[in-house]
């Protein structure tokens, strides 16, 4: 690849590195720019979506305009997706590099602009994640608006009555709520919903609908913490039909009440993964195994003679939850595995006062096992709140399962792909309270990073108008989604002009211009045409063989 690249027109230096994104290589790139007086840089590696900013920073440090950079995506879109066809993949990589190098020749330096940032945050969702994010932002000195749809803050955490250390999370949450509601820099809006968001990092404007009318909020960053709710088991396992069947959250409520268990209760059965992992929910909800262990231990502590059986597919007691698993076993909780092909069955016996019989296939002994039980507890997963309206307004992606999708799972785990928008808590993925808090702090820290700079320098991918060619027809003005291009009088004629601070770089104006008078920074017509021709070149060389 390196030899191939070195022979391409315009290339004066080509090198391969083990890690092109490493600190050493950045230094090397800067040195080579200096030594060979390079004025364009092409990196063939992973994807520009994650790594372009890093290399652009290197260019800038070496004194080059960051628009003089191009990337060929030969990993995510080549080597990784053609793993069994190395030769074809190499041919493809050559083409991609040739196309990138060809385009690079047409890149020109673009002027940078700096836009002011509104120094405040909007946090949507007042569960533990949202509350934590709001406090973290406000404690760093920024204003914050926290919007909660319901009449109270707190969310799902208020339904949990003990954590694994036996403490009541509701007390901590109540303290957090007092803190957030009394914070001088936080404005809490309850029974409120965001009906409109427009703008971009540094300059968002939202409309919040509240009982007392609409409020307009200006904010520099947005944190989404819209959370989730328990999966509803429907009629499964007699849920809703027998009073003896309940979810883990309902059991938690009972355990904190005055009569946690029927006085004569002798047996409790729990079923894991109800509706999860390939049923209505495709995924594992992460919290349910720990919750079952926690509640089994609570039951055993309250009534050591009580029989507790957990029917599971895989016990996912990750991290310190392993201690809970050991503890539960030590206390005599029985773990019995079932397979999804042969799920447990439940029968209600009217003549025995409505007790339940749970029958499960035990794969170890190869036989059905029966338990007569006084209570059946279903471990159900987490369903994300429907975020399509918000996601649609902000243009952030939602996974098939309905969770918000981060920009990069490893490198940018709390950023959404749209600049200035962050995610935390159950809105992102099922997670325990402590994990939600850690993630909310991370999201707030990332959000403050944008606020702390005080200004942003957006990518200079904006349109520009060649006034010689412009005929003043106004098509660009009509179609621009951002009102970022306007006609103005130039003597007797009308000419279009870009308002660069508003331009987002979509390019609609360019492709609709009747005289091709409009071009896009870094995505010029000339540059893309050159890429197309570079793509086509290979056929000719192949044809000659």
């Amino acid at each position: 690849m390196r030899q191939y690249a070195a022979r391409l027109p315009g290339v004066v230096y080509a090198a391969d590195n083990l890690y092109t994104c490493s600190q050493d290589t950045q230094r090397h790139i800067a040195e080579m720019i200096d030594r060979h007086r390079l004025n364009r840089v092409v990196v063939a590696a992973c994807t520009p979506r994650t790594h372009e900013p890093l290399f652009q920073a290197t260019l800038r440090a070496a004194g080059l305009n960051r628009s003089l950079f191009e990337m060929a995506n030969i990993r995510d879109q080549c080597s990784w997706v053609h793993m069994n066809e190395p030769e074809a993949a190499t041919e493809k990589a050559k083409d991609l590099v040739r196309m990138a190098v060809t385009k690079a020749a047409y890149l020109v330096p673009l002027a940078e602009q700096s836009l002011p940032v509104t120094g405040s945050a909007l946090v949507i969702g007042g569960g533990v994640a949202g509350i934590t994010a709001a406090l973290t932002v406000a404690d760093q000195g920024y204003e914050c608006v926290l919007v909660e749809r319901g009449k109270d803050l707190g969310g799902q955490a208020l339904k949990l009555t003990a954590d694994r250390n036996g403490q009541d999370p509701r007390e901590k949450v109540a303290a957090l709520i007092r803190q957030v509601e009394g914070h001088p820099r936080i404005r809490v809006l309850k029974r409120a919903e965001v009906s409109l968001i427009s703008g971009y990092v540094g300059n968002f404007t939202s409309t919040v609908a509240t009982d007392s009318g609409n409020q307009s909020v200006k904010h520099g960053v947005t944190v989404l913490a819209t959370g989730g709710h328990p999966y509803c088991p429907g009629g499964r396992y007699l849920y809703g039909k027998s009073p003896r069947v309940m979810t883990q959250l309902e059991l938690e409520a009972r355990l904190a009440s005055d009569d946690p268990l029927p006085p004569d209760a002798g047996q409790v059965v729990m079923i894991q993964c109800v509706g999860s992992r390939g049923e209505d929910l495709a995924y594992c909800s992460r919290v349910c195994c720990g919750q079952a262990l926690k509640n089994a231990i609570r039951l055993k502590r309250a009534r050591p003679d009580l029989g507790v059986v957990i029917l599971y597919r895989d016990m996912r007691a990750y991290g310190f939850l392993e201690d809970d698993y050991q503890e539960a076993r030590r206390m005599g909780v029985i773990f019995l595995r079932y397979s999804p092909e042969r799920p447990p069955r439940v029968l209600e016996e009217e003549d025995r006062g409505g007790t339940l019989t749970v029958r499960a296939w035990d794969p170890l002994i190869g036989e059905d096992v029966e338990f007569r039980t006084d209570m059946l507890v279903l471990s159900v997963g987490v369903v994300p709140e429907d975020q399509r309206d918000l996601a649609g307004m902000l243009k952030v992606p939602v996974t098939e399962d309905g969770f918000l999708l981060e920009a990069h799972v490893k490198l940018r785990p709390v950023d959404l792909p749209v600049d200035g928008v962050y995610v935390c808590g159950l809105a992102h993925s099922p997670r325990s309270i402590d994990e939600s808090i850690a993630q909310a702090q991370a999201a707030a820290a990332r959000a403050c990073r944008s606020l702390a700079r005080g200004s942003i320098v957006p990518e200079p991918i904006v349109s520009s108008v060649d006034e010689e060619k412009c005929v003043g027809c106004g098509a660009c003005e009509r179609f621009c989604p951002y009102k970022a291009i306007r006609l103005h009088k130039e003597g007797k004629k009308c000419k279009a002009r870009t308002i660069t601070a508003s331009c987002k770089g979509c390019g609609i104006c360019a492709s609709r211009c009747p005289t091709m008078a409009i071009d896009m920074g870094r995505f010029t017509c000339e540059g893309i045409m050159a890429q197309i021709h570079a793509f086509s070149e290979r056929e000719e060389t192949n044809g000659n063989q």
Partner: protein
Amino acid sequence: MATNKYEPRILGFLCNWCCYTAADSAGVGRYQYPPNLRVIRIMCTGRLDPSFPLEALATGADGVFVGGCHPGECHYQDGNYHALVSAALVHEGMEMLGVRKERFLIDWASAAEGPHFVKIITDFTRQVTELGPLGKAEGRDAKRLRRRLSMAAAAARGRKVRTGLINAAREMMKGRDFSREGIAGLVRDKCGRSLETALGDRAGR
């Protein structure tokens, strides 16, 4: 490659926010698909000049794919609707020249739909493979076809056709009918004549 199997040459224009991201995530998930596609990244399919796909077909592609965000989910609101207008012109030109329309596809995959992207590309590659090199399924001389496609590309850069596209796009936005048939009808209406003239006159049939 020393294999005799025909490998089509496919050029793709993917928008940064949806399809390009889907393609990246297909990589992260190690989903495999045929190695025929070469990608040009654009910020939005709204950037797709109607002449780009025609130019690609004229100079060497056997198939062209344009991938954007699902309708209604465009990062820039309307970009993919404008792409549909440009695409309709491409299809119109292909039909006039007798080029199989299945060689050009515009479709959508959201950032979260790596597997869907893989399916689109796998199916499209199979489809173009079945058509064979440009000219084969058409039963026409490839060189001549490409020359005429190049005229269509030039026409798509011309003021007459582009003015027609503006009118088509205006009506589309006014009527809010974003169906492919609806848009194809508008484009045929507004650009058909000028495109035909350009091809007829300059092709010297």
